[in-house]
């Protein structure tokens, strides 16, 4: 019980919403790891936003006499097997990734939270049923699940999001359920119950805000996994239908021509890795700060 914990801050007026947001950010900026992660993410987001300006060429235009060429001043990173400029495909590829991944994570977070809250709060039969359902999905190797879903509903952007949501939901539901089980025993929940509050109010007004912290950190990691999934599906030919620029697909195609144009495969790999590393660093920084902040 070090003396530190005893002291209480002098009670000042509660900061306005903006300052509180900045306060949140300032915590993250204090952890080196978190800042690096944030910078990488911001870099890729900017690339996605300004893609049309940055990309030297239309990602889909094919230049028949520059197939699998190495880097030249015309095509900075060289061309792929259909003569398309790799750099611009990479730049536009960020759009697909940075739209689909967060979207699917958002979807699985919403579904997962609802499931987790109901299972955690009501317990008993509801909890058992939901858990068994989630276990069944979790029991399935993730890749196989993707295969079956995509095979069933065909490859398309929407279906990829649906597949990733379907796979991501159990993890989030489990996390939310365990947090709810813990919060449910707290006195302020009992106080709400003694006021006869409606269970839905208790779940979504009293419990949900306290679940946010760990949920955000986990969501960040899941965006990383979602990027993996999009890449892997692309790689297995189940992802987005060609010609949409997609990093996973680029790796798959470039692999076939590894002998003639080895570097083509390198760029998408570096792109994916850097983005996911950024996300993980940011999540780690956030987790370190929140634990020390309590």
């Amino acid at each position, binding site marked *: 019980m070090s003396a530190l914990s005893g002291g209480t801050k002098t009670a000042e007026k509660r900061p306005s919403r903006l300052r509180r947001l900045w306060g949140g950010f300032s915590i993250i900026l204090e952890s080196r790891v978190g800042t690096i992660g944030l910078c990488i993410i911001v870099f890729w987001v900017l690339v996605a936003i300004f893609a049309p300006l940055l990309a030297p060429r239309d990602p889909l235009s094919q230049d028949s006499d520059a197939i699998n060429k190495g880097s030249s001043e015309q095509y900075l990173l060289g061309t792929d097997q259909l003569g398309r400029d790799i750099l611009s495909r990479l730049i536009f590829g960020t759009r697909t990734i940075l739209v689909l991944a967060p979207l699917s994570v958002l979807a699985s977070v919403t579904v997962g939270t609802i499931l987790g809250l109901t299972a955690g709060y009501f317990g008993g039969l509801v909890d058992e049923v939901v858990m*068994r359902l989630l*276990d*069944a999905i979790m*029991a*399935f*190797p*993730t*890749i*196989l699940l993707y*295969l*079956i*879903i995509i*095979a*069933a*509903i*065909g490859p398309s952007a929407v279906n990829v999001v649906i597949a990733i949501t379907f796979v991501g939901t159990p993890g989030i539901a489990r996390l939310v359920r365990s947090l709810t089980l813990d919060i449910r025993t707290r006195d302020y929940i009992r106080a709400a119950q003694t006021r006869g509050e409606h269970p839905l109010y208790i779940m979504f007004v009293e419990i949900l805000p306290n679940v946010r912290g760990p949920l955000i950190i986990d969501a960040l990691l899941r965006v*990383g996994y979602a*990027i*993996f999934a999009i*890449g*892997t599906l692309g*790689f*297995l*030919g*189940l992802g987005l239908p060609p010609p949409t620029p997609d990093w*996973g697909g680029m*790796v*798959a195609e*470039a*692999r076939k021509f*590894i*002998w003639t144009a*080895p570097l083509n*495969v*390198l760029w*998408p*790999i570096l792109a*994916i*890795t850097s983005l*996911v*590393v950024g*996300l*993980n*660093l940011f999540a*780690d920084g956030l987790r370190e700060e929140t634990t020390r902040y309590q």
Partner: protein
Amino acid sequence: MFRFILRRLGFMLLTMFLVSVVIFLVSEVAPGDVARHILGQFATDDQVKLLRQQMGLEQPLYVRYFDWLVGNEWRLRNKVDMPLVYTKARPKDEIQWWAEESDGTLVQWKYKTSSGSLEQIRIAPDDSREVVDFEGWKTRDDGSQYFWGVDTAGHVVLWVKNVEGAGSGPAAAGRSLGTSGGQEYYPLKKGLLRGDPGISLRTNRPVGPTLARRLRNSFSLALIAFLLIMPIALALGILAGLREGSALDRSISLFSLITTSVPEFASGVFLILVLSFWLDLLPGASVFVDDTAPLQQPKLIILPVLTLTLAEVGYVARMTRASMVEVMNAPYIRTAILKGLPYRRIVFRHALRNALMAPITVIMLHVNWLVGGIVVVEAVFGYPGLGLYMLDSALFKDVNAIEAGAMVMVALAVGTQLIADIIYTFLNPRIRFT
């Protein structure tokens, strides 16, 4: 304890049943038609229809599922009113469906398109084989003659005398349409629960044997990777956890962070690029000449194992480190320090056991991921494992293969979860399962 295992096994069967139903439904809903897939774009519609009938796809869904699960030869027996048997007629023959006469001779029928009549293939118990014209037509009340029999392709077929069948079409994948001419076809199955997962729609050969071989390959790959990953990851995690905050800890954390951030296919391709293309040390793809390939040429396995290890070590190491850090700050470690115990004794006798509790259970769960994760690695290296088999079947919508594979995977997954829980009870004296 026993009661707990019973409950978990019950749960496993339930999950497998659930999954099998889901797969059947999903493949039913899926666009695209398997028969069309097999025959390609050039087959005429009625040829496709005939093939669908031959594969039994015309039957309603629940019948097909039921056949797949339990088999249908006991039901179709009364059509042929002879016992149907799934055996090897002669020792070196392939396993086929036969009707068995009372004296043990195995009988099959064949439709001769030229004469529109049936001939019978008879194999007596003394293994003598003869082909005889068959005249046992039955007549219906409207005068037409029909006969229910077993054809050479394992169907129960209704032949009608002098009525032209749907004709033949291009043979595809070992399936000759020539023996058609039957009006109704029912493919014979023994059913999963009685050991026969059915015929692969893609290769038209029983799923069982190929699945077993592929499983063995995948299993050996997963096992080697597992035996490689766990010790390294645990050691790294513990080292980082003990030296929390030191340079060693930061470098290990960074390494594991990077390796977990690289998707398997990316790291796989990257390794091919570096090791086999630039440095030319290892074969790019692991092409198996024959079944025993992995043992003779270990070089084939090195790259896939390395990819799997890279992807997995980081994750387990980070988790072990977190658990180790948490344990090292626990109050009972403080007691151990204040009891004046030497550092080594504190780490090995007090900290390790508690620290490994969490990772051990998650590692077992990872066996499940390992089996799934291999799909990608196998795809990258063309390694003929269960994963690749599942991938191809899924792409080809080969229901029987996907079902069989899924059953194995689910059994493996739930099995490992069960083992994980049992290990946990031994490690953690506080948990006693009711």
